């Protein structure tokens, strides 16, 4: 036992020492790929209408554009089961704390789409006393969909961009 070949023990120790990397290459990458593949085609948005862009989300979820084709479900259910929040337009000073609260309640990993000019920069309401000039001060944004309001096709493009981002996500645990 004691006289085991140094060369042999060294290889074994190296293998044991790098077990993380080995597992990462052998299981982790396929697992990550599998998990992310599952995530990106079952995005479940929180139903938080913040302003008028929600009409275009309704149109996109309707039978003509049908965003379910792209793997985004209807916006129903508990927000604790959701992993996507589409901020549909203007966020006012009254809604901002609620938006943060809703974001904090969602389970990781979670993504944010800022839809419409108002949620990106304040848009037309740049000089209003009650409107936030962009939501990225309070929650991190993954995809910006510009427009006032963005067409349903633009929202679909935003979702496809987000799916691309999820596919390339380097870790299993999210951010």
């Amino acid at each position, binding site marked *: 036992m004691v006289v085991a070949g140094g060369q042999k023990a060294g290889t074994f120790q190296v293998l044991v020492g790098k077990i993380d990397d080995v597992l990462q290459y052998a299981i982790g990458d396929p697992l990550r790929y599998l998990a992310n593949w599952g995530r990106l085609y079952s995005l479940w948005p929180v139903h938080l209408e913040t*302003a008028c862009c929600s009409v275009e989300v309704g149109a996109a979820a309707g*039978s003509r554009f049908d965003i379910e084709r792209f793997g985004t479900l209807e916006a129903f259910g508990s927000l604790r089961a959701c992993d996507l929040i589409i901020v549909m337009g203007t966020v*006012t000073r009254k809604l901002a704390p609620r938006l943060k609260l809703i974001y904090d309640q969602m389970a990781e990993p979670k993504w944010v789409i800022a839809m419409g000019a108002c949620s990106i920069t304040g848009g037309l309401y740049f000089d209003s*006393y009650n409107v936030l000039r962009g939501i990225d001060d309070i929650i991190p944004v993954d995809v910006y969909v510009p427009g006032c309001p963005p067409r349903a096709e633009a929202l679909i493009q935003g979702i496809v961009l987000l799916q691309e981002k999820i596919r390339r996500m380097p870790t299993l645990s999210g951010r």
Partner: protein
Amino acid sequence: MKMALESEYSPDADRIMAVSLGPQHPGAGHFRIRLWLDGDYVVKALPDAGYVHRGEEKMGEYRNYIQNVPHLERPVILDSSNILFAYSLGVDELMNSKIPPRGQYLRVIMSEINRIISHMYFIAIQGLFLGHTTMITWCMGDRDFWIDLGERIAGARVTFAYIIPGGVRNDIPDFAIEKGLKTCDWFEKRMDEYEKIFYDNPMVHQRSDGVGVLSRDDAIAFGATGTVARASGLALDVRKDEPYSSYQDFEFKTPVLTQGDSWARAYVALLDMRESVKIIRQALKGLPQGPVRLKLGPQPRVPAGEVYSRTEAARGEMSYYIVSDGSPRPYRLKIGVPSAKNLRALPHLLRNVHVADIPVIYWSLNYWPVEADR
């Protein structure tokens, strides 16, 4: 279970549970209802608006009369032409400008198209809240044909910005007239199918007959307008009462129902759309020739004065109170939106009802929070 009356319990009594419905809720987006419940019954409900208050009226004082056009249509994006219609009528009256007949007809066409777009959204979500998924699938799809028609005329998808002070922004292309007449023919047949599958559906009747009844006297006292008032037996229709913009040229009725419940409020919307189709067809066929707008320039000079203009929007009476002091910008711009006028009826209707009836009653008021908050 015995129904609890509000007088029997104080809101802080032990068996009363306070629940907040919204602002994140499928049934009440950007709006919150504070509820006090006794078991399954609502003892008291208070609306909490203001999640989309964007200060339109203050912004209106910083912009001139033409610059006000784009931001004024955002509050009611489903019905964007009608909110600008009232504004344009007000500014026209202040400037004493006479709109050319073709412009007046085009305003009517666009206003009625938008009424249909708005009502389609309304009955789609009403179907959704009743668990009637067919209605949302059909209506959201069919609504896009009308949006396409509006896009062919105005160039934008939902924010048309078509009706502006002085007339309409551009003339209607010929192919849009053809398409409009075809859409009207198709839609009239389609509405029969809506009646069969939704309004005559026993499930829909059970869920919404006698739910949230607003009596005629209450409708008067609360200042209800539009579909809510007409479902309660009040024949209020600004298009008939003070015909603006050549509405006197068209033949149409004001549908009035007397039940005053959620079903009637949803059904009035369908009857409204039937009349709208008639108006659009008459206007497209009898479209006069001539210019569509007056040349106003980018910064029109509006004489000093006050005006209270109103139109019949999809949800009811849309009114503007514009005070001009002769400067390029309005001194005061008050937007009187129908949703805010109907809001007072909500806490009245949400008393001694089942929790499950809240979404039905809430949405049957045709309440659009973005519009009410401005």
